[in-house]
């Protein structure tokens, strides 16, 4: 179910990859192009989110809902789910607004799906 949501998301926004990982950085579901090393991305995501989360807490921000990074060769979007993170990697040329709408929609679908199956 989760994989299908991710596949649809990738198709809609032409994402290079998307994955759902646990808070510990373990991939639960992923759909990504061959060049993607899912395990590595998951581990780095967990490390980045944990370190940046600790930093923003110093500013009095107790939690982070979303985290976007724009780099030379693409964008990374991290959305906090109930007990996991959704990570999406897109091309730089992708329409940012459309990407966010679709990512939000996918995040909601994943949360619903998780609630039903748990």
């Amino acid at each position, binding site marked *: 179910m989760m994989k299908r949501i991710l596949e649809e998301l990738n198709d809609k926004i032409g994402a290079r990859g998307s994955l759902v990982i646990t808070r510990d950085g373990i991939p639960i579901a992923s759909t990504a192009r061959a060049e993607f090393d899912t395990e590595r991305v998951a581990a780095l995501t967990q490390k980045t989110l944990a370190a940046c989360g600790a930093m923003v807490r*110093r*500013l009095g921000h107790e939690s982070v809902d979303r985290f976007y990074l724009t780099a030379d060769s693409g964008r990374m979007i991290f959305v906090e789910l109930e007990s996991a993170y959704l990570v999406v990697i897109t091309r730089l040329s992708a329409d940012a607004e459309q990407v966010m709408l679709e990512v939000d929609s996918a995040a909601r679908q994943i949360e619903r799906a998780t609630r039903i199956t748990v």
Partner: protein
Amino acid sequence: MISTFGLVKKLQRRREIQKISQEVASDPSPAKIETLCERVAATKGPRAALDAVERGLEQFPWSEKLQVLAFGLAKAVAKDELEEITRAIAESPTPEAYGRLAERFRQLGDEDEAIRVCRECAARFPQNENAFLVEGRLRTDRYRNTGLARDGVLAVEKLERAVVLNEDNLRARQLLGGLYADIGAFGRALPHLRFLKMHGAPDERLQTLLDDAEAAGGSVESSAEIAALFAAASPAGSIADGDTARSDAPHATEPNLEPVLRDVREMNGVREVVTTRRTDMAPEDPDGASLESVARAIFAIASESLVEMEMGNLRHAQISGPQGQLLLFSLGSSEVSVLTEPRATSQDIRERVLSASRIENGRGANGERRR
């Protein structure tokens, strides 16, 4: 038996090469040269074939077929040499060996690795111009391919350093003269072009650039003006695309950003705005709770992860939560951090910050180039 068979084969190939060589000599064509190179590569290896294709390119410099072949062979040669140079460096490092290694990585298309080698060389041999020249060339190529201002700024910075270390480095001066002239920094271009005219081979393009530079006149541009001119010439404005490595270039964008940042501070929902110098150094107060120290730490963490994920360098980051948003921008040699209320419109803030240097760095209100 096998060796006799091998010898016969070898002789046959040699005769074949001789025959094609004669055909190439009597009636040269790119197709014949290509066939010859393929045979030479099969018998004598890619180095000999590359020599042959380079001779062919002297006769047919615009042949796409030969250019493609030369590129492929250069890559094969570079790969072969890579291991050998790496071993030589491990045994006895020299700036020349580092220069060759960086050049090979460049030929293989691995620019990041080439730059890393240059940096290692510069750290070990800071008085040798080789590494600065190779990195300068790499950045120049990248600037010309992508138009990214940051690469242009870093290219001139490295090349200037190469010229300081060896004022007779004509290649560095040639690249500098071309880059400065391209962005209209004729005051900076002039001494390099004059030096090349006096000490280099006669060159029609050089004379044209020199004429343009002398006609334009004007004073020598400051480093801040150079950064602004690169930004104005770049299709992406001055948005940095360079690495997070520490740069010796002056803090070029900060004064230009100031008026816009004042506006940003006034925008709805903005709590705090800080600008810091781009650096790879750890924050002065790593445990601090100031926006500056938190932003610098996040820049460092995110940049490192993106490089590890092979996504390139960080341009912009945004962290949103119920208590507010933190927006980070990488602009030239500056980093801008904006802390907002939860409901502030991040898109407006982002557009305002990103428009800053485009307006100030050499373009008027209507987008026309200022001189």
